[in-house]
Structures are given as C-alpha cells and as structure tokens.
C-alpha cells in the first residue's frame, strides 16, 4: 500500500508542480518557481530511488491501479502504472537527469520574465514523460507520448515572439503526429488481436508464429511511431530545428529523455518484435542510415547546438541498430549513458552560450578553456565519453552495439565504426573550435553560477563511471543492467553475444586506434584555427550537399509542405467554391422547382407558414401536458 502511494506520487508530484506554477505564474519570482519545480522533481527522484531499493527484480513487476479509464463494450483500459526493471530504469533517468536540469535551469533562466511558466512546462513534461515510461498499458504510455509532444511544442516555441521558433515548434508537433498515426494504428490492431493493451497480458499471450502478417503490421506501426518521437529517418528533420527552445529543454527533452521514448517503446514490446524479424531488419537499416546521415551533417554545422542535435539523431540511430539486432539491453545501456553525456554536452553548450551572452555560432568562439574552466573540463569529459575513449561510459555502451554489429555482419560493423569516427571527428572539431585556439568573438566570457556548474560536474562524473552499470565480462563485470532488465523483458534473456574474447579485444583495439587517429586529425585541422572556412558556395558538390543537410528540409518542403498549402487553398477556392456549392445549389433548386408545395415557401409566406405551425404545436402541447 505504501509503495503504491509512492508509485503514484512519482508522476503526480511534478504534475502538482505544473498546476501550482501555472496558476501562480504571475506571482512567483523566477527563483521561487525554479526552486519549487526542482524540489518536486527531486522528490520524485527520491521516491524512484526508494522504489528501486525496495524492488525485488525476481518478482518481475507489479501494477498499481489508479482509476478505471475507458471501459465500454469489451474494452477495459485502466489508468494504471507498472513498476518493473524497465520502468524503474527509465524513472531513474527521467527524474535523476530531470532534477539536475531543473536545477541548472534556475541559473539559466533567472533573467527570463516568463521563468515560472518555463518551470511549469518543464514539470508538466516530467509528468508526461513519467506517465510514458510508467504506464501499464499502451494507452497510458500514449498519454505520456502525446503529453511530451505537447510540452516539446510549448518549450520549443517558448520564446513565442520569434516566428521561426513557432514554426519549429509546429514542425516538431506535426512530424510527431505523423508518427502517432502509426502508434494509434498499432494500438488499435493490438487491441483487436489481444483484447487488451496491458503490457503484462500481451507479453504472456504473444508467443509462437514467426512473421505473422498481423505482428509485422503492428510492429511496423509501432516503429513508425518511434521514428517520429525518436527522430529517425524519414522523420528526423524536426529535431535540429527544435534547438530553438531554451538549452535546458534541448538537454532534457531533445537529448536525454523524450527522444528515447521510441527505444523504450520497442523494448517494452520486445516480445512482439521478436516474432517479426522482418520489422527488425527494417529497424536495423533505418537506424544505420540515420546514424550515418546525421553524423555526416554534424561535420559541417556551425551552431553549437545544431552539432549536438545531429549528434543526438545519430546516437539514437545506434540505439535503433541495437534494437534491430535484438540487443535490447545494449540499446537501453546506450540510452542511459547517452542521457548522461548528451545532457552534459547540452548543458555545457548552454553554459558556453550563457557565458557569451547568447552566442551560438562556433565561428565566433574559440580559446574559451581559460575563461570558463569548469565548463571546459566537463565539456571535455562529455566529448571523450561520446567519442568512446577507453573506459568512458560511451566506450562500453557503443562498443557493445558495435560488437553485436560485428556478430551480425562485418559490413555493419564497418558502417558503425565509420559513424563512430565521424562522431569523434565532429565532437572534437566542436571542442577545439570552442575551447582551443584564440577567441574570435567580442563578448566577455564569464563562468556560470553554481546552480549550473554543479549539474555539469555531477553529469561529468556519471559520464565517466556510467559504464559500470553494465560492465562486461571482458572487464570483470557481470552486465548488471542486462540482468536487471531481463526480469522485465524476456527477449533480453535470449540476447547473446557469441564473440570470442580475442575477437572482442581486436575490435576494441582497432576502434580505439582509429578513434585516436581521428582526434589527432581533428586537432591538426581545428585546434589552432583563427578563422574558419568560407561560404558554402565554395565547397565541392558533395560537401556542400552534406553541409546543407542533404537538402532534406528543402525536399520535404517541395514534396509535402508547399503542395499541402496549395491543395488546401485550391480545394477551397476551386473545388468548394466552384464545384460543391454550385452543384449542390443546382440540385436543391431543381428539387424545389419540382415541388409545388415547397414552391409556396419561396414566395415570401414562409414566416406565416412557420408561425402557424408553431402556434398549432404550442396549443397542442399545452393541452396534452395539462390533460396528463
């Protein structure tokens, strides 16, 4: 009973915070609002930790029923939360990293007059994200799924006076909604098949047949949903634009938590995906393509946040590659370490932007390592973590995915390795251009306040030691995270990495040598730069194409956006005005012309007829009612 209450409190606390802050947003100061919001999400974190400590993995999990939600006909969908290894893992990430980012935001947003609104929305996001990961059935997850979409929309467009930001916010919401069509269809289909949407029941029932067409359809629909939320091809172009939001938002929503929802969803329904190898192959290749395309774009971006955004898309691609190979725990491991180092990198970028009074263009940075030391050191840690330098958290998680990749096919390993080297290159390019060389801007850099640097330091530590969470046998560990998660998802029990120790060491050695070579290359090219290469127009064709983000935005605008606007306008001016209305008027007129009785109505006696009818009715009604 006590744990049930605690479970319910985890999402409810930030919801309460959101409601209080939204209603008092004009009365509270930025610091009070930030303090309250942080305290509530931190309480959720404490509650999650207590739940985690008291959780016995061997029991599998339990469900906390809150309310009957939709029950009609044969459908009975409760508002219920599920506590198991998977939801606990995600709860700890969401509330833990969430608390740090809330704390950071107190410093980052203290001068914004709408800071209380910001914290209300950040708390609302936390609530929605917690519903997403804690839901005991697909439809509860969908509550969170749409809720985080709404909060993402609100926070991307937080500075609503700038039309481009509003556009970016709408773009994010609409592209997510396209994915949601898949998600809704998947739920409808699964409900039709199983008569329930409870994860636990579906997991028990879904066994047997391989490549059952229905399961392929359901898993493909789920994956379409995942591509929207987790920014995979072809629906990833909203994420870089989403950088219009305040930087803590980019860290929390667009790096550490919301964008991993698609991965979570697939792990949650891993049983279904295990019976649909066809879908898994598609996931594998979409993930690989996204990882490489996004990484290539990252090479040429000059906005500090855009580099990180493409990096996020690329890293999410790695997670999908893992899912496609059935390495669910590897995907979750990378979700976790990525949450640490990408949140760190974004918050570090925010600290840089803060230090430079809003500057985001790395061409006007440089040489900052002396003036903002803490930011530099922590950003450095983040960079080596994401690049997978030995013993960093990213080393273990990415290496695991690449080892599975080698087991799948050496070609895949080659592609993943290439992507990893691109990652190293653009991350060190960023590091060198921002912190090394000489300063190319005009601001007076100053270190950020403690509320901002403390989260950086905590995340830096986590980015270093995060690998311990799932330390492989090769390094004397027992993959604790895998064994924890397999109590929630049977599919994880059957994951098997069958490479010999020698092979693994060799792969690791090759990767490490190449990573260091890449760093050296990046150092040579960027560490001492005083100026940066010229305009895109001077670049050779391929380079220019990549720098222009493969022109995907332009392609989508030409294929979908503009035609849709054109159709919308012409459907009205042409079809509705010149076809529907005249034709239906004609039909009506013809019918009238034929009816002698009706014709009288047109002669102006309408009101008389109607009034007569009305009076008759009144009299009749009164008589009837009184006679009763």
């Amino acid at each position, binding site marked *: 009973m006590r744990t049930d209450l605690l479970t319910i409190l985890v999402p409810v606390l930030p919801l309460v915070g959101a409601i209080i802050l939204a209603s008092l947003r004009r009365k509270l100061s930025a610091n009070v609002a930030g303090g309250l919001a942080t305290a509530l999400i931190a309480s959720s974190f404490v509650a999650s930790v207590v739940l985690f400590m008291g959780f016995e993995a061997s029991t599998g999990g339990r469900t906390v029923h809150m309310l009957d939600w939709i*029950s009609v006909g044969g459908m009975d969908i409760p508002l219920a939360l599920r506590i198991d290894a998977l939801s606990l893992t995600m709860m700890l990430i969401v509330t833990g990293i969430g608390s740090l980012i809330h704390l950071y935001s107190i410093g980052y947003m203290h001068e914004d007059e709408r800071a209380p609104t910001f914290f209300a929305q950040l708390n609302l996001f936390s609530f929605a994200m917690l519903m997403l990961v804690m839901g005991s059935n697909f439809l509860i997850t969908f509550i969170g799924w749409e809720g985080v979409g709404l909060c993402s929309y609100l926070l991307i467009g937080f500075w609503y006076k700038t039309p481009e930001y*509003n556009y970016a916010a*709408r773009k994010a919401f609409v592209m997510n909604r396209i994915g949601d069509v898949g998600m809704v269809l998947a739920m409808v289909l699964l409900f039709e098949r199983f008569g329930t949407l409870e994860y636990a029941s579906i997991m028990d029932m879904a066994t047997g047949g391989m490549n059952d067409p229905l399961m392929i359809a359901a898993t493909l629909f789920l994956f379409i949903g995942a591509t929207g939320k987790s920014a995979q091809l072809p629906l990833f172009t909203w994420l870089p634009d989403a950088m219009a939001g305040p930087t803590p938002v980019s860290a929390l929503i667009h790096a550490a938590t919301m964008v991993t929802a698609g991965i979570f969803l697939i792990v949650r329904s891993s049983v279904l995906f295990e019976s649909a190898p066809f879908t898994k192959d598609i996931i594998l290749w979409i993930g690989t393509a996204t990882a490489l395309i996004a990484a290539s774009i990252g090479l040429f971006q000059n906005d500090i946040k855009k580099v990180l955004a493409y990096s996020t898309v690329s890293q999410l691609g790695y997670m999908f590659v893992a899912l496609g190979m059935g390495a669910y725990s590897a995907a979750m491991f990378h979700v976790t370490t990525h949450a640490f180092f990408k949140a760190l990198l974004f918050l570090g970028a925010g600290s840089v932007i803060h230090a430079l009074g809003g500057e985001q263009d790395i061409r006007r940075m440089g040489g900052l390592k002396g003036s903002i030391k803490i930011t530099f050191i922590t950003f450095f840690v983040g960079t080596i973590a994401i690049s997978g330098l030995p013993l960093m958290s990213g080393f273990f998680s990415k290496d695991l995915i690449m080892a599975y990749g080698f087991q799948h096919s050496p070609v895949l390993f080659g592609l993943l390795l290439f992507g990893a080297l691109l990652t190293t290159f653009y991350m060190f390019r960023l590091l060198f251009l921002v912190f090394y060389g000489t300063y190319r801007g005009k601001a007076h850099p100053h270190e950020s306040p403690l509320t901002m640097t403390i989260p950086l330091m905590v995340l830096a530590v986590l980015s270093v030691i995060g690998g311990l969470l799932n330390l492989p046998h090769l390094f004397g560990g027992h993959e604790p995270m895998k064994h924890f998660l397999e109590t929630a998802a049977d599919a994880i029990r059957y994951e098997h990495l069958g490479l010999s120790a020698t092979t693994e060491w060799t792969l690791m050695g090759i990767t490490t040598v190449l990573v260091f070579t890449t760093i050296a290359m990046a150092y040579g090219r960027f560490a001492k730069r005083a100026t940066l290469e010229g305009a895109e127009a001077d670049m050779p064709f391929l380079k220019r194409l990549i720098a222009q983000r493969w022109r995907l935005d332009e392609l989508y605008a030409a294929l979908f956006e503009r035609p849709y606007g054109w159709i919308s306008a012409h459907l009205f001016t042409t079809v509705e005005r010149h076809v*529907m209305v005249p034709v239906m008027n004609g039909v009506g007129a013809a019918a009238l012309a034929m009816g002698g009785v009706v014709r009288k109505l047109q002669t102006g006696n309408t009101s008389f007829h109607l009034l007569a009818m009305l009076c008759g009715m009144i009299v009749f009604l009164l008589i009837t009612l009184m006679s009763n």
Partner: protein
Amino acid sequence: MIVALLLLIPFITALALMFLRPTQQAKNVALISTLASLGVVLFAWSAYTGGTVIHYNMDWVPSWGLRFVMGYDGVGLLMLILTAMVFPFIIAAGYGEKLQHPSLVNALLLFTQTFLFGVFLAQNTLLFYIFYELSLIPVFFFLLYWGGEHRRAITVKFFIYTLLGGLSLLFGIIYCLGQGEGFNGDFATIGSLNIPTSVQIWLFWVLFLAFAIKLPIFPFHSWQPDTYAMAPLQGTMVLGAVMLKMGLYGIIKIVLPIVPQGVVHWQETVILLALIGAIYGGIIAFRQSDLKRLIAFSSLSHVGLLCAGLFAWNSYGVSGSLYQAFAHALLVVCMLYISGAMKERVGSSEMGAMGGLKVRTPRLAALFLLVLANAVALPLTQSFVGEWLMFAGLWQVNGGLALAAVSTIVLGAIYMLFAYQRVMLGPDKWALEMTDATTRDHFVLVPLIAITLFLGVYPGPILELVDVPVQQLLSSLSLN
C-alpha cells in the same frame, strides 16, 4: 414531471421574454432558465437507473393510431445532458454580443432549446419529426435578422436545404406508417416493421438524407461553412454544438432501426463519404483566414469522423461517436467563444488582423491552448476518449478506413496549431490597450475546460450511460 419541466421551463421563459421584453434583464432571465433546465436534467441523470423511461404515453391522433409518447433512454439522456449543459454557456456568450433586441434573441434561443429537448424526448417518429422541424424555426429567424453579411441569401439556402432533407424524412416516415399494422410510429414498435431489403436500400437514403444534411456530411455540406461564418456567434454555437447532434441521434433512433439492412448495405459508402468530408474539411481548414470559417471546416472534419464512427455499427464505434458528440458540443462552444472574444478585441475574426496577441492577452492564450489540446484530441481530454473508441470501431470494419480516419489527427494538428500561431504568437504589434480574459470569459471557458478535462480523465459516467443502450441496440439488430 421531468419531461413537462424540460419543455415548459424554456418555453414559458421564452414566451415571457417575447411578450414582456425586459431588455435589461433578458440575458439574466434566460441564463436562470437554462440553469434551471440543467438542474432538472442533472436530477434526471442522477435518478436514471437504465432502460427507457417513459413519462407520457397517450392517444394523440386516434384515427391514425398515433400516440403521444415522451421519455428517454441512455442515449436520449446523453443528448439532453449535452443540450442542457451547453445552453447556459451559449446564453452567457451573449453577454459579450451587442445584438439588438436581446429579449427576442434570448427568446429565440430558448424556443430552440425547448424544441431540442422535444427532439430528444420524443419516443415517436412523427413527434420526433415535428420537433425536429420546429427547432429550425427560431434559428431561421435568428439568422435572418441578426446574421452578418449576405444573411438573407445564406439563411434561405440553409433553410431550404434542411427543409428538403426534412421533407424527405417525413415522406419516409409516412411510408413506414403505411406498412402494416404493427408500427404506429412509436420507437418501441419499430421492431415490428418488416421492410423488404430491396426497399430498405432506397428507403435508407430517403430517411438518411435529412440527417446527412443536418450533420452535415460530404457532399451535403455546402450550406454549412457560409452559414456558420455568417450566423451570429450564439447561432453558430447552437447549430454546431447541439443541432447537428440531432442528426446523429436521428440516425440511431430512426434510420438504423427502420432500415438495418439498408444501413448494412450502405455502411461502407457512408463511412467513405464521411471520411472524405473529414479529410476534405481538415485540409481546407488549414488555409482559412477567418477564424470562424476555420472552425466551420474543422467542425465539418470532426463531424465526418463522428458519422464514420457511428456507421462502424459496433459498440466501440457507436459509443465513441456518442461520446465524441458530447465532447464536440463543448469544444465547438469553446472554440467559437474564443473567436468571439478575439473579435471583440481586434474588431474582426480575420486571423490576418491578429497575431502577437499572447503578449496582450496571456490568460486568453492559455485558455485557447487548453481548448486546442481538446481540439487535437490529446489524451486526458474528452475528445481523445471518443476518437480512440471510434478508431477501434472503424478498424473492425476495415483497416484502410481506420487509416484514413486516424490520419485526421495529423490534419487537426496542422490547422489548429497554425491558427493558434496566427492568432496568439509572433511579435507584439498592438499599440492599443487590450483587456485580457474578463470574468465573463472565465465564467464560460473555465467550467467548459474543466468538464472537458474531467471527462477526459474519468469518462466513466458518460460511457456507462451509453454502453448498455448501445449494446442492446446492436444486439437487437444483430449486425455483428
């Protein structure tokens, strides 16, 4: 007693307003009357235990065997609740309107409410028809005298359209009355009708046409956008929130029971037309520059979905459609109220003339946003429950149709967010002072939004109301 009160409260108040003309107090009187009706309906709801409650059952036209039967079942009660619940807000919305002769305006609105109650209380097809047509009359006058530009032409067109549909319905009912002894027009005796399938196939359209126009579904909708845009705010609210629900109710109470085979025969055609309308309206709404006309097309889109869900004729589809009918009523009132509130402030409902208003009216922007969440059917709002059930219902009919239906969630997001941006977001370009949400704005929007959210989290009370009648309806016809 309940039936008599529901008909008499608005009717007598309306008569009083019409003859006494208390100009100053007209709105207050009307508001009290609608609140009293709401009280009666809520009492009826609390006392309702299931089944069909018949309050009056007496001879009407003995020579034809017609009887005067009034009462309600769960579906009827839902419609009564819906009607009673939105009317106080429609009256309240009038406080912001500067219409001539407020006593007459409110009298007409209350007449409309009387006849709408009559429609949902009638347990006899002919009685239903009479109330159905009567409800048109006060609205006709309201639009004709208080409408905007081109009101004569548009009102007459609207009137002729609905009247044509009505005549078709009347013909159908009379035809049925001529079919043998068992059927005397009462809903309860429809089961004894035994119309050959070949007849049902054409009779379906005779009966359905009235409701297809009233809803309206594609391609019978061409009266709707102009009428919605031209009508005075409260007129559009009545049309969009309540009157079109008569169409839905009529399909359930008359079309389905009388011509079940016809319904089955035309099921996919109707769903297809309805969904074409849903997509057509959703696409057109995106580029509309007038907020009220945008709402008209968005309503066309929502109603298309409602009709499609209903024609799934399984328990999810029908329950979802009814639930959504309720949600849609509240949504339309909210949306139109916001368009009115913006028009009050900037003098026009053209979105080109708006933009950047969030700076001046942050509270209204926040309320708009909450309404928007319901409009795009985010989970935990009322609309989501209805849409989800309808999607589940449509999937059982045909996967392709379900896909088309679900795709409207994208269209809705596109036009609603664009509308919100054009009205509220962007740089502040207003030099003049502007009042943020007033007490009246809060009085209308906050309770409606609260109901919307409450029923989104806890839809049980409404779903319970329709669950059993819908199951009975479907099993009695053994469509599934």
